[in-house]
């Protein structure tokens, strides 16, 4: 009988039920969409922040200082007494957080002399160095990715796949202008262990002191300075989790952490954890966070997530209120029917049960439809803003289900109770 009653409501009150289901679907879609976006936005924004370049720099443990911001002085080649091995570079992609390493580029520099006697700093690095990792991941690492803000004003990027790559350089806008270089020009570079004639493949505008320098392949600089197989430092761009208290404590001294804290720290993508793991992977190295980038990323990420959380909270509240509002209205509207059932002899709990079941079935239908709709909204947002799909976070399902259930209950139970308290006489007798 119960089943017949429920079926009766659903089939013969289609219009009303559909309206309720529709509103619940809207509310659920809002909740789903927002929750999905909120949970994913951190990753998306993190990806965008990689535009800023390296947030980690790896150096040999015993290297001493050099290199200035505004070109006040000499290059590091005489003073560096320690090196990293080029062959160890691949190990960066074997650490626990390998997946978070988005890009990296080795650096080796040399002071080179130009034909007119002036000196210019030559940086050797990877450009689009292809790596095929044992995990199956394919990655192009190097300057092309790490210098997203460079504008190529002339010519083209140096392409490592080109067989002549080792005899090409890219020139900064300032030095190119001073020397009158154009793409295709040939230049003679002299360095401590040799000289070479190279072709300018392109000119870049970096908007910084790199405009006064030139870039070439790692092999080129190694050849010119007799430092085959060596690298002075590595820039790394990693997706990180903003620092918190634990991360800061760990950064000072990982050994001082308790066993459980250590695991938590190691298994979270804090900058300090990733640096620690890189040091473990590359012998003789010390990795540190480039605070300028890492702190900046942290600030932006944190605020973005906080903002999204609050907006999501507002939407959830709005959604909840909207659903419970309508559900209450629909129950009040059934006052006569409830009064009738009571007059016929139904017990309170029986009536409550039937109405609740009907509402819950409707809520289920609405909720499921809403979930898919909401997921669609999330994808719309993800693709429009970030050009990438929003990841399906399974955690959203139970949350939305709980929300819809709770809100539906909260909207219907008090209303049913109120109606049940009314005496059937009041409800049934109209118009005497």
């Amino acid at each position, binding site marked *: *009988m*119960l089943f*017949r*009653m429920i079926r*009766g*409501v659903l*089939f*013969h*009150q289609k219009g009303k039920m559909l309206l309720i289901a529709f509103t619940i679907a809207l509310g659920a879609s809002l909740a789903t969409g927002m929750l999905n976006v909120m949970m994913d936005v951190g990753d998306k924004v993190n990806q965008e922040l990689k535009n800023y370049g390296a947030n980690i720099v790896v150096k040999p443990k015993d290297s001493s200082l050099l290199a200035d911001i505004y070109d006040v002085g000499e290059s590091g080649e005489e003073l560096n007494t320690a090196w990293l091995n080029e062959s160890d570079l691949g190990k960066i992609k074997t650490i626990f957080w390998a997946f978070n390493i988005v890009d990296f580029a080795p650096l080796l520099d040399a002071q080179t002399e130009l034909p007119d006697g002036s000196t210019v700093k030559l940086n050797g690095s990877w450009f689009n160095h292809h790596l095929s990792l044992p995990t199956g991941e394919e990655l192009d690492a190097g300057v092309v990715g790490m210098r997203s803000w460079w504008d190529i004003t002339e010519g083209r990027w140096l392409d490592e796949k080109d067989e002549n790559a080792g005899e090409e350089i890219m020139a900064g806008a300032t030095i190119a202008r001073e020397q009158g270089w154009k793409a295709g020009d040939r230049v003679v570079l002299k360095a401590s262990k040799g000289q070479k004639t190279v072709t300018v493949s392109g000119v870049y505008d970096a908007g910084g002191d790199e405009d006064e320098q030139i870039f070439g392949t790692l092999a080129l600089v190694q050849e010119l300075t007799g430092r085959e197989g060596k690298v002075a430092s590595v820039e790394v761009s990693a997706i990180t989790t903003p620092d918190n208290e634990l991360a800061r404590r760990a950064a000072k001294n990982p050994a001082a952490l308790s066993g459980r804290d250590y695991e938590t720290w190691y298994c979270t993508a804090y900058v300090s954890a990733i640096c620690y793991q890189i040091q473990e992977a590359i012998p003789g190295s010390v990795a540190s966070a480039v605070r300028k980038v890492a702190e900046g990323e942290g600030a932006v990420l944190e605020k973005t997530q906080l903002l999204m959380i609050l907006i999501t909270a507002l939407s959830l509240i709005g959604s909840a209120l909207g659903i419970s509002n309508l559900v209450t209205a629909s129950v009040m509207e059934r006052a*006569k*029917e409830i009064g*009738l*059932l*009571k*007059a*016929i*002899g*139904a*017990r*309170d709990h*029986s009536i409550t049960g039937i109405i609740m079941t009907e509402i819950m079935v409707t809520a289920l239908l609405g909720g499921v439809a809403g979930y898919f709709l909401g997921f669609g909204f999330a994808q719309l947002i993800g693709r429009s803003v970030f050009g990438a799909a929003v990841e399906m976070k399974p955690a959203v399902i139970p949350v939305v289900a709980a929300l819809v259930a709770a809100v539906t209950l909260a909207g219907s139970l008090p209303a049913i109770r109120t109606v049940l308290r009314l*005496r*059937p*006489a009041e409800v*049934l*007798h*109209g*118009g*005497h």
Partner: protein
Amino acid sequence: MSLLELKNVSKIYGDLKALDNVNVHVDKGEWVAIMGPSGSGKSTMMNIIGCMDKPTLGEVLLDGVDIAKENSKKLTDIRRDKIGLIFQQFHMVNYLTAVENVMVSQYYHSMPDEQEALEALGRVGLRERAHHLPSQLSGGEQQRVCVARALINHPELILADEPTGNLDEANENIVLDLFAQLHAEGTTLIVVTHDPEVADAAQRTIVLEHGKVAREVINEHFDEQQKLWLARLNAENKG
């Protein structure tokens, strides 16, 4: 034997006395009409007898049990077990079919039985309309379904509030015939009405005015009426 007794029952709303010290007595198997103009208190009395309301003062004994003292839950039980209700505004659950509406009443009493429900519909002449929704039935037909619903559980007391108020003459006669049938079977009938014709069909009429019992009128012709009705029924059956 007494089935229903109202002893010094009053229903007071502030200054207004809807019922004022009313005494009524109904025996088992009696067919009683309660008559009075609007505002006379008959609806109030109907509600109290139907366990849908409680008096402010007095006792209401149904089969010896004072229902004025019972709580809401118990009243529901009593209502369900002993009383069949027929309202003026034929309240049906508008998303259930005719037979399902009857079955709802069964459901809360014991167990839904479609066969029995169909038979009940047959008694009121609506067997063929069993699977129609209320929106597909005329006013008269809806009322007859309500009657079927009221008697499906074989209640001791049938309480009808203006059962023919919204019906045309043909349907009114059908309903009154049913009542005659029920009376013949021994069911106690209390019919609240303002229509003298409907009151005349009963054995006794209690007239209410301003919340008090003004007078009681005995129907001298009742036995004759019953005989006539029986004869007509036999004729119809044979023919």
